[in-house]
């Protein structure tokens, strides 16, 4: 088989850097709030660090496990089945914030939708590996490929978690696209989805308010436009050099979720354009190394796996940043590796572990 060289050191390094940087920024963004709510400024960062360690262990293990072990139906279908069960199980848990995103075991909490993303990538890679350029038969190729995606997306939408559902849809679309699906399929798919999308966006009152707020934040700066305006103020005040680490003010009272979905605003405020470009740059490096692995790999399964993992990270990262910069309407999407959120961090790191294993066979 292909000769074994070391893992991609750039990919490994940039991942580690993102995790450590994320821990620092979670501390900076949440210290005041954590002290306020739980009495200790370290509450969030400690939880995040624990997940980071678990995630890094998973990364190191998966890095050493041959990715071909996952390329079999006995792995893929149980994974899809388990994810479906967990997504369903979330509906039987007590809701938090009127959503069913979580499964809690005493202190541990788990977000099944975070598992759904890598499982979806795994399934599509497995399914598409020998269908490149032959996705022509609706019934035999396209629909079976899309079926688990549609199932996951429907369950995630029901939670409701529109952001993650959109990420799943985007990753599915991109992988189908890479498999050579015709552009008109996407057009039809979009047409088919648009009534659902329209309903989701404009018939749920708070989402419609978010849309209106995005289109005109000044319309109601104290309520719906509040998040966007405060995020822009945070980014804008950062300037080139930023206010300095821990010196951000917007996180104190104005930024919503400064340690999760809006952590990039806090980074931009405290570290300025330099810090913001550093974060963007790290994702660019990660994306480059990931797609490079996909191109250079000779195994189609590995290629799809690499494309899927890389695009999952990039779509979330850039979507999150775009929300913060008010380029797109507000959606609950975390910034990979950086936002506080254990499940997301764990599965992101595990995915990168698989990706690193793929890079072992590339020089």
């Amino acid at each position, binding site marked *: 088989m292909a000769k074994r060289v070391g893992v991609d050191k750039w990919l490994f390094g940039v991942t580690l850097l993102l995790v450590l940087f994320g821990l620092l920024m979670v501390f900076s963004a949440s210290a005041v709030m954590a002290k306020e709510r739980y009495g200790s400024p370290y509450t969030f960062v400690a939880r995040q660090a624990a997940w980071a360690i678990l995630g890094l262990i998973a990364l190191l293990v998966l890095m050493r496990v041959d990715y071909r072990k996952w390329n079999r139906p006995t792995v893929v279908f149980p994974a899809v089945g388990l994810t479906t069960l967990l997504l369903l199980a979330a509906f039987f848990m007590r809701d938090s914030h009127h959503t069913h995103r979580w499964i809690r075991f005493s202190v541990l909490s788990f977000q099944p939708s975070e598992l759904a993303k890598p499982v979806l990538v795994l399934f599509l890679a497995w399914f598409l590996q020998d269908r490149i350029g032959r996705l022509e038969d609706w019934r035999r190729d396209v629909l079976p490929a899309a079926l688990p995606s549609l199932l996951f997306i429907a369950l995630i939408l029901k939670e409701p978690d529109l952001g993650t559902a959109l990420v799943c849809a985007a990753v599915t679309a991109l992988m189908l696209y890479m498999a050579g699906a015709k552009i008109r399929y996407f057009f039809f798919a979009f047409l088919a989805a648009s009534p659902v999308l329209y309903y989701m966006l404009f018939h749920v009152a708070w989402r419609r308010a978010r849309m209106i707020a995005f289109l005109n934040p000044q319309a109601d700066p104290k309520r719906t436009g509040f998040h966007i305006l405060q995020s822009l103020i945070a980014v804008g005040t950062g300037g080139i050099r930023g206010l300095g680490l821990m010196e951000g003010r917007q996180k104190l009272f104005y930024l919503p979720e400064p340690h999760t979905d809006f952590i990039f605003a806090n980074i931009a405020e405290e570290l300025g354009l330099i810090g913001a470009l550093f974060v963007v740059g790290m994702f660019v490096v990660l994306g480059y190394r990931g797609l490079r692995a*996909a191109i250079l790999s000779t195994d189609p399964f590995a290629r799809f796996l690499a494309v899927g993992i890389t695009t999952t990270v990039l779509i979330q990262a850039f979507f999150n940043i775009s929300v913060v*910069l008010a380029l797109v309407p507000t959606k609950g999407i975390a910034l990979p590796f950086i936002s506080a959120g254990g499940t997301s961090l764990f599965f992101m790191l595990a995915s990168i572990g698989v990706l690193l294993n793929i890079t072992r066979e590339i020089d």
Partner: protein
Amino acid sequence: MALRGQQSVTGMNKKARQPLTAPIPRLRFVLLAGGFLLWVGVIVARLVWLQVFCNAIYVERAAHQQERTFQVAPRRGVLYDRNLQELAMTVLVDSIYAVPSEIEDKEEAARQLAKIVHTDASDSFTSAKAIDARLEDSRNFAWIARKVDSSVAARVSNLGIKGIYTQQEFKRFYPNNRLASQVLGYVSLDDDGLGGIEHRFDTDLHGAPGRMLTAVDARQHSFSSVERNPQPGENLVLTLDEHIQFIAEKALDAAMQRTQSVGGTVVVQDPNTGQILALAIRPAFDPNDIRHVRPSMLRDDAVSDIYEPGSVFKLVTYSAAINEHLTNPDEVIDGQNGKIIVAGRLIHDWHPFGAITVTEALEHSSDVCAIKVGLRLGPQKFYDYIRAYGFGQRSGIELPAETRGLLRPPDRWQPSSIGSIAMGQEVGVTPIQAITMISTIANGGVYLPPHIVMEKTTEAKGSPQLLPAAFHPEDNVPEALPPGAHRVVTTMTAAEMRKMMQDVVLFGTGKFVGLNGYSAGGKSGTAQKVNPGTHTYSKTDYIASFGGFAPVNQPAISVLVVLDSPRGGHHGGEVAGPVFGQVVQQTLEYLDVPHDMPIQPSSRIAREYAPKNSDTMGDHDHPGDLRALFAEVNDLPADDPLRQNPQSATEDVYKPSVVSRSSATSEEDISGNVAAQPMPPNTSHAQSSVPTGGEKKPAPSSVAARAGASVKVPSFAGQSMRKAVETATRLGLGVRVLGSGVEREQAPGAGTQVPPGTEVVLRFAR
């Protein structure tokens, strides 16, 4: 089924995988990477746009939002008098506010709160409706009531409503209440100066507010961090002297009550520096309670209101003519039996004078002589002198809304104007302009611009950098004149004027002044008020004034008294003269100015109330001067009965209709004061020498009633300290001991009747 079908497909493909596998199209990789790079490009462009080009806008918006969140008010600067006594200071009081998002039932909360804080029906800020409106208006912050009593704050916190908090705020406090209120002005609820010095120096006094971040979100409310500390305002040291101000206000209050005047002003100035030592204006208001003050009272009449000076203005006429050698004090002028025709207009003098000297003409305020002297000057020269004395222009004193006064240039004078102006008509002056003119004559002929602010300082009281300004009443005008100063008349002219003005006090219209131990010069003025509607002279309303200085040879103070529309008598000399005398007497004694005239061996008070055996009176006839002792008496502590008087006196001004009971009490208080210091009260003085003065006699019965409950002060002369204290204690008198050795001086004098418990000041020396 589907599962099996898929498996079979996979199985089939597995065999065919190698040959069938096509690479992912390169183009699609390029497009994917290109798409992501485009996205990155948009993000970077957006970041640069927001963080570089829009940076300033967002910095400002962040600051705005944080500033609006919470401002920390600065401590307003203190107003000190010249001896660093606080005239206006800042204290901490409670204010009540709400975080509306934490309140469950806003309407009910507003109703409950209003029950406690809405103490004044006229206050629309604290009504239940207003509170509720504010609670609905903001999520984060709403005032409930500001600067309330601590008891109100306690009752509110006892309600236990969630989301209601108290916070300390600075409140302006005027420890002397009404004292100098017209000069000091007042501040709004937000510490903005709205009148007087407070308004004029608002920017200096106000200081810079600090900024504080507080929670927008109710959960995070308790978190707050001081962003910038407030910068306290500068302190101002005024030229006023609290004691002289007190003397002036007390005298003015008594005069206002006696004459039923509608308004009045007493100004005391140091003629050698131009500094205003006291500026008493009535009606006064209580700056601690401005909500209940009529806006018309908040004006500073001393600089913004003009009056026709009348005969006081003859000082300008005569001094100008003497300075121009057009006349001299001894020249004899024909009074023309009280008639003169100026430009076809016949003017009657108030008395048909015959041939009299210039000095006598001033003494008796002959209009005809003044007009004749004025005519000699001619319009232009006369006008130049009037301007040189500071009339018709702002003095630049540090008070708001100063007016220039009314003075037309000569080319706009009527032919008869020169006659009118020579006797003080057709001109409008402010009390500050008039006192500055008198000071010019008093100090030897130099116009010194008046001042009321000594210095601005950031030093706090107690700092060695902020020592009380040395005040030497005997100082002369400095060689190098301060900015704005200029000579108006020669030293010689000024000296001749002072002599003439002394004769006014000794023999003329100023004979009601009645000083003991001091010489004084002055001039009375009586002007008919001009009816603002008809522009004609009123037949019933007069402005009675008296201005002058003392002592004559080395003037330490100049004083001007102006009374608006006195009832009964209206001649300046009779009505304002005694007030002038009272202020001069007490101020000079307070300032330790040496007596330049023999002290009358026994004051009328002592003669009237003392027992008949006059052997005890000998002690009072002390050859040494008593000024130090008097100063001690005047400088009594705040709890001394002397200091309580203005309170009752000022209150009495506001109910002048109550004559019998309250006025008798206040008369009693006044005579009580006088009894405590061997000095004739002007009331009784005027009464004894002017039977037709039209002034109320103090009821003798009140004096008799007082005498019954009082103690006769014995003579302590030559006693040892121990003996003196024993004697005093036995009689129920307090003692204040100065020096050591044997008793040399005492106040009040032996034989004086005083209430039990009165403090007797004893000076001991070897």
